[in-house]
């Protein structure tokens, strides 16, 4: 249907106005369709989360959130994000730098490896760590002798989250840096600048918006990850439960309002992230 539309204005006499009419029809129906999908898929569930969480009143809502187990889940979620996001930021910048500024063997392999976490199911992201660091995994017996607990403890959760959020920054930067080329850096070097000076003065200012965007996406995923974390967490309340896992636990305990209240907390974290993202994107345009 839409494909045949552009033909119409060329035949019609009052060319300009028809063009506008027809295309505005297309425009509005497309916008309407998108809005409908958005309402159906995103806005409605959001409303459900909020209404369900407040169904039993503010008191239940607040009680669910200040519950020690919920607070500890929130703390763990933030802690995991604080550890994983900077690490992945450093890794992402380094990888993007290496891939776009140098020529070397195995470059394609590196790019593929960076993409791997996007391609495999998060459950596998968790299981591989159980197989490597679990009691009967490769390093299990040795770790057990040293009394180091990785799986079913914070390190395991951090590892799984690192794995899952690993591509976000690099993936954001690689196309950007490729597009920018390296003329400015070359110019700086000719003028006598050293490696780190080039990075801080030229490269970083050039990529900062893309970098921030990647960091924000990485952060959002780090706080929201369920599958991989679920495999390695051990689900100990007040200890190795992250917010997404806590939501599931509450739901399974018939505490529907409480579970939606905690879900709304996650939602607020996500909204803050998105608002920051929007703000940065606007700033970067100006």
């Amino acid at each position, binding site marked *: 249907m839409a494909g045949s539309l552009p033909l119409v204005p060329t035949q019609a006499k009052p060319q300009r106005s028809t063009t506008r009419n027809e295309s505005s029809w297309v425009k509005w129906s497309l916008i309407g369709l998108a809005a409908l999908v958005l309402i159906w898929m995103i806005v409605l569930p959001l409303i459900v989360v909020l209404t369900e969480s407040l169904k039993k009143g503010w008191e239940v809502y607040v009680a669910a959130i200040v519950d020690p187990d919920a607070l500890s889940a929130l*703390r763990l979620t933030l802690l995991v994000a604080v550890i994983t996001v900077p690490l992945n930021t450093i890794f992402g910048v380094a990888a993007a730098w290496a891939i776009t500024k140098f020529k070397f063997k195995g470059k394609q392999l590196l790019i593929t490896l960076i993409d791997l976490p996007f391609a495999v199911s998060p459950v596998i992201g968790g299981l591989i760590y159980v197989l490597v660091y679990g009691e009967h995994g490769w390093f*299990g017996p040795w770790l057990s002798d040293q009394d180091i607990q990785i799986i079913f403890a914070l390190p395991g959760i951090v590892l799984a989250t690192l794995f899952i959020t690993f591509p976000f920054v690099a993936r954001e930067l690689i196309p950007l840096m490729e597009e920018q080329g390296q003329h400015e850096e070359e110019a700086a070097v000719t003028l006598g600048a050293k490696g780190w000076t080039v990075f801080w003065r030229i490269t970083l200012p050039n990529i*900062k918006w893309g970098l921030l965007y990647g960091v924000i996406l990485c952060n959002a995923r780090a706080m929201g990850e369920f599958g991989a974390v679920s495999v390695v967490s051990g*689900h*100990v309340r007040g200890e190795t439960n992250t917010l997404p896992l806590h939501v599931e636990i509450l739901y399974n305990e*018939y505490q529907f309002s409480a579970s939606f209240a905690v879900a709304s907390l996650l939602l607020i974290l996500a909204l803050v992230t998105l608002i920051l993202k929007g703000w940065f994107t606007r700033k970067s345009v100006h």
Partner: protein
Amino acid sequence: MKKSLKMGMVLSLVLALTVVTAACGKKDEAASTSTNDKKDVELLNVSYDPTRELYQNYNKAFAAYWLKEKGQKVTIKQSHGGSGKQSRAVIDGQKADVVTLALGYDIDAIQEKGLIDKDWQKKFDKNSAPYTSTIVFLVRKGNPKQIKDWDDLIKGDTQVITPNPKTSGGARWNYLAAWGYALSKNNNDQAKAQEFVKQLYKHVPVLDTGARGSTTTFVERGIGDVLIAWENEALLSVKELGPDKVDIVYPSESILAEPPVAVVDKNVDKKGTREVAEAYLKYLYSEEGQTIAAENFYRPTLESVKTKFKDSFKDLKLFTIDEFGGWQKAQKEHFSDGGIFDQIYVPSK
């Protein structure tokens, strides 16, 4: 230049904020543990799915008892999930002090890896099963499909909800309850029992991994006509969801489910928590422990509590796992790879 300076400021602000929040949290934690560091002790109880409410209450009671008795503060952490999955986690290195699982086989599996001593089942009374339960049916209000006994489950287009016996302990009890019923009805004819169970699983549209998952499937998602469930799980859902939504149906015969408990010897010896871990499980047999179990719909084993809660638990004909030659044999025959369950279960559609 100016712009990047501002940028840097924003970035560092965001970072600083997050670090501060996390640090605050950390500090709280450190403060609370350091004040009575020497005395406090922590236990991790790795349990199966439907015991959440039971242990929530029991842990409080035990902590109070232990504080009074020994003057030591004990915090008990809980982890819940399908019994088989939980057993797997302990094998993979979850540092449980005690396991309270759905059936003996799952503890045997941990024992086989050397984490638990061989004679664990003799360490506590009643084969280390402080409370028991049985398998019943949960149907929609008014019982529209007129389900009265096991035979009604395989009639017409009745949809049956039960979890996956490979991952869920409750599901294995469900399966064996059906099998045992068919055996006694057909004069111990194994072939006929197998045919009955095969028919039964043809009526199962979805296998969840744990008992609680199946309950939510049945109750919240509204799938199925009947849920085969732990008696405690069925009574709990009636309490939680109100008696106007579901009814409990007791079949003519069912299995006596004995969920056992054990101390994970290797872990408690390493952590030095043996004394409190053993006391924790032992207290389950006390008057108070038994009362909490009964209040959470588990059948008590202590006579005095039994008589007190006589009206809460219906009397019905119960057979035990011995009918199947014990858990080792039942597991091997029915639930191992290529076992009878694998042979008869064909996912529907």
